């Protein structure tokens, strides 16, 4: 067992849940409200100095009762130590957790990916948008266990939506605002922008019987 787990327990007391090793690697559960504090403490405390964030991801188990876990893998480059910190998010509560972007800039895209794939909201994230799926993606969160492998919409519906998307749907509104020559845009595009429509999302059709 990684000695940092005991140090965490001394520092954070009840916020630290069970800890165990799997395949020789230490895993510690931390209360979801204290995760950022615990990771920040691990990062800066001398003797811990977990200065490198290896990965942020999430796990949903096949057992629908089990909470979703957000997994942080942190490493101390100098001490060559690695620790896996997990936080449990119960499914009947809002899937929310504090962002660690303030600790590691590298968490930015990793948290966006978790948001994109699992629908977990990271509080205080500077730019929480979908990253791998497009921003108007309306089928849900692909890595959730209730998401069918082929997607929620039929292939015909997916094609129809892709073909009917307008050009400016490829840009975020923020990006379009960079372009100051607004009045040079064609009339219909200006109209859509003014309405805030970016390739409006069609209503989802009745799901196919699968």
């Amino acid at each position, binding site marked *: 067992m990684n000695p940092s787990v005991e140090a965490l327990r001394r520092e954070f007391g009840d916020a630290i849940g069970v800890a165990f090793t*799997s395949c020789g690697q230490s895993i510690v559960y931390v209360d979801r409200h204290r995760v950022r504090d615990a990771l920040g403490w691990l990062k800066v405390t001398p003797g811990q100095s977990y200065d490198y964030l290896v*990965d942020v*991801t999430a796990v949903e188990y096949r057992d629908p009762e089990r909470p979703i876990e957000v997994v942080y893998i942190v490493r101390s480059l100098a001490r060559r130590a690695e620790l896996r910190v997990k936080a449990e998010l119960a499914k009947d509560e809002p899937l929310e957790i504090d962002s660690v972007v303030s600790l*590691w800039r*590298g968490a*930015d895209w990793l948290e966006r990916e978790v948001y994109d794939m699992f629908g977990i909201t990271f509080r205080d994230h500077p730019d929480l948008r979908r990253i791998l799926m497009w921003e108007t993606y309306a089928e849900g969160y692909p890595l959730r266990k209730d998401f069918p492998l082929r997607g929620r919409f039929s292939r015909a519906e997916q094609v129809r939506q892709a073909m009917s998307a307008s050009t400016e749907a490829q840009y975020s509104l923020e990006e*379009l605002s960079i372009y100051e020559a607004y009045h040079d845009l064609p009339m219909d595009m200006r109209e859509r922008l003014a309405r805030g429509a970016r390739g409006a999302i069609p209503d989802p059709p009745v799901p196919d019987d699968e």
Partner: protein
Amino acid sequence: MSKRTVEFDLATPGVDPAGRAVRVPLGAAAVEEREPDIGVEHMLLNVGPQHPATHGVLRLVVELDGEIVVRVIPHLGYLHSGFEKLGEYRHYNQIIPLTDRTDYLSPMANNVGFALAAERLMGIELTERCKVLRLIACEMSRIISHLVWLGTTAIDIGAFTPFLWTFYERERIYDLQEAWTGARLTTSLTRVGGLLADIPDGFEDGLRACCTSIPKALEEVDRLLTRNGIWCARTQGIGVLTAEEAINFSLAGPMLRASGVPYDVRKDLPYLDYETYDFDVPVGEHGDVYDRYLVRMEEMRQSVRILEQALARLPDGPINVDDPRVILPSKTAAMNDMEAMIFHFKQVMEGVAAPVGEAYVAIENGKGEQGNYLVSDGTAKPVRWRIRPPSFINLAALPKMAEGHLLSDLIAINASVDIVMGEVDR
């Protein structure tokens, strides 16, 4: 110096008081009529997804002030294939073909990375010959990955010749890869507990030949680029990241080491007995595009050193573990022996169950630390298969690096990250 037509034409409008034609400096007339500065309006430029310099289907929306990059907003996902989702519906051995398609410029290293994670989960100890052969596969992958990087980056910055030389050498390794696995790109080299096949006859000689020809090719590229004025001007001081920034961005591989952080998974968290090989880890000091180039050049030379040592020590023996639960019996045994046939049937139909648990195993592939995180609930299919994608995480630093540089430097910086979109988007 002979007078060129264009100068003559331009000179004719100007006539001095004596009636003799005088030369007007090129463009001087245009300057007079040019309107005053068009102001501070920023321009929005879309680069990609179909653009050769974005190395795949990366799309960058760039805010420009004149030619200076103010902001870069990357858009990803054009190659998203849902590998991680697909993996949850497949047996461990069936996931290996998916790993080919993530970082498709070094497929064999990905195969090894996934197999190591699955074996860690199942507690399988590899045979000695398998370990050395997998290490050879990893180092071959690193060389071809870096050779592609070197060639394409040189093209991006305007030098075409290195591309031809590096792709020639890469082809020699691809021939070996094809002889070994039957495929150039989709190798699927590993199996949980072993390998698809042992190396074919003549492979060792072919690899030795590569070990002598690659340093020569690198020497030629080195002579062409390393002290080349244009190359230095285009790369030195461009896209600088300090060591603290590189760590803060979770960068890995040559990107991290070029910024001066001496971290290499092969040295710091050794796998496949890397600790028993003698090699150096090159570290840069400026963290710019030029240092990334130097680091990758030296890494290829070190890979050749490792390959030579691996060839010298390659032991005889089986490539697969002796465990009928995970390794398919030989065809002869399966056809003649009832028990062997049952094992064959169970493995193909049910897969190999992994005990409840989870494992994260990192390897150092050409792009950086490639990790495989597997969670098992005791069935033959993982609950979660997560790839830690080094290209994706390295690319996240691109907006930071490109700010304030010229648009043409953005291309050089993007090239220096060494992304492969199959892995970024997965």
